[in-house]
């Protein structure tokens, strides 16, 4: 997922009521929203931003049935083929006794798999440092980053955000892709490219 270095116009809002129409208007004007950073989950924001439904749960379902199959196949192989044991006179294929383990492996696979997938989708990994568009995005501000392309006039975008009710507006250059340790190496690049 190499994203490269991109330029963003960043606007901060201090009210949900201002943020929602702003998101709507920015999309209407045809600008590309990179992301909106909020201190807490905002109901309906994903819908307003036009983000497609996540497929994380589909991945979770696939991990879960993988867990189910792993548990059942392994246990049936062990207890009927590899090492059959007489446990309390029960049949070797003791399905009821395996259900709790099958259930737990199902949950384990789906939980661990979904956490890892989530980290991948959100570009989170150890030693990866992410760019923060505004430190107060984790405190009390809603921060909207608009991606600039070759054709974008960033003065126009800034004026647009101003009229949409943004409190603070600035232009930032940031790395959007990720790789372990990548950010550190690329950081020098930003300094070289001052006045981008």
């Amino acid at each position, binding site marked *: 997922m190499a994203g490269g270095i991109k330029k963003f116009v960043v606007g901060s809002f201090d009210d949900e009521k201002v943020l929602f129409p702003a998101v709507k208007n920015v999309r209407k004007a045809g600008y590309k929203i990179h992301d909106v950073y909020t201190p807490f989950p905002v*109901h309906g924001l994903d819908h307003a931003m036009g983000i497609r*439904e996540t497929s994380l749960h589909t991945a979770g*379902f696939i991990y879960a049935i993988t867990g189910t199959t792993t548990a059942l196949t392994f246990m049936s192989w062990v207890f009927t083929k590899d090492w059959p044991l007489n446990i*309390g*006179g029960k049949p070797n294929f003791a399905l*009821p*006794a395996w*259900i*709790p383990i099958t259930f737990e492996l199902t949950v384990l696979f789906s939980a661990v798999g979904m956490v890892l997938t989530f980290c991948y989708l959100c570009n989170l990994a150890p030693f990866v440092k992410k760019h923060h568009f505004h430190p107060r995005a984790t405190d009390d501000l809603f921060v909207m980053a608009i991606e600039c392309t070759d054709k974008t006039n960033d003065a126009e975008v800034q004026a647009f955000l101003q009229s949409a009710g943004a409190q603070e507006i600035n232009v930032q250059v940031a790395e959007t892709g990720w790789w372990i340790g990548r950010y550190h190496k690329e950081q020098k690049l930003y300094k070289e490219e001052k006045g981008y």
Partner: protein
Amino acid sequence: MDHQFQLPGSYKKWTYGLIAVGLVALLYGVFRFQPWIHSHHGSHVDATRFWAVLLQNSTFFLLVVNAAMFFICVTTMAMAGWVVAFRRVSEAISSVVPILGILTFVILMAIVFGSRTDIYHWLDKEAVANDPILKGKSGFLSVPFFTIWSFCTIFLWWFLGKKMRSMSLESDKQGNMDYETGKKWVWKNTVWASLYSVVFTLTVASTIPWLWIMSIDAHWYSTMFSWYTFASTFVSGMSLIALFVIYLKNRGQLEYVTDEHLHDLGKFMFAFSVFWTYLWFSQYMLIWYSNQPEETKYFIERIGTATKPGPYKAIFFFNLILNFLCPLLILMKKGAKRNWTLVTVMAVLIIFGHWIDFFQMVMPGTVHGHYSLGFFEFGIAALFVGLIMWGTGRYLSKHSLLAKNHPFLKESMIHHT
């Protein structure tokens, strides 16, 4: 919109049609099965079938409509706002409790005072005197205790449910509540809801399924049985609420109910289907694992042994497919729970599935291998469904469909999952 619902002609036609079918089935049963004849060791299994079917249907449908009031009470105690948009629907369903309660009580008393030992083995005084296990249970499984506790239970469900409903109806006349009045009103509701829940725990979640259903297999016991029954009827109750909500929405009523509310109702149907399975499996697995003859008897009567399949094997596993696999796989996706048609189909399926579940709880201990699923069984079920439709429809058309002064109404209107 004035939130006043006029019962359409088709609703009335279906209601009276189902009741008529039910009455025909009942008359057919009375003349055909001669329920007054006593059956000893299967000598007159038709009479046993008559009482067993009445017992199955009355207890099942009573517990299902009663679950609607339990739903109101738990959501009241949890201060849940989202239910307010369709709260009157749950109230309407719970208003059937007195009707079905009286009917169930009459049936239970006919069984107990008619000394139907073919239904409740513990009614046989001679057998109890010679049986140390039944003797040990005779304080609990006795005519006076059964009668008094059944009466108290139905009375308390009716009384506390009535109180909850009347507080809700009073709020319609009160006008818009300010903060202080609203707080007091919610607190009063919470207190009564808590009282109801305590009674519910002492009855549905413990003693009542033991007395009414588990005591058919008088020797056998399972501490999980009441929770199992509760899960069965609660998930059916949620499905019934969903059905009525969807029906009214189709009729252009309940303007504040949206996909979001349906989604949450669907979640309840999904989650409690899984919860039911959890109890189904736990009860089965523990008995299978410990392999005690006095416990395995219950399952041998149903699914039989490895060498000899029992008469209820097909129904027993069909039950698991209907109530576990179908809801699990079909209702899992978010889109399915927001699909009005699919939720309707699943609600009908779940209610039917748990009716079958009650069938396999009641029949093996009473009619043994000689069960049938014919006109009589489905006719009696139609009678109870008709009665539920009649009582619910009466409440829905008599009162406003919106609890318009409920302090949490706004929360329900903007509900978003």
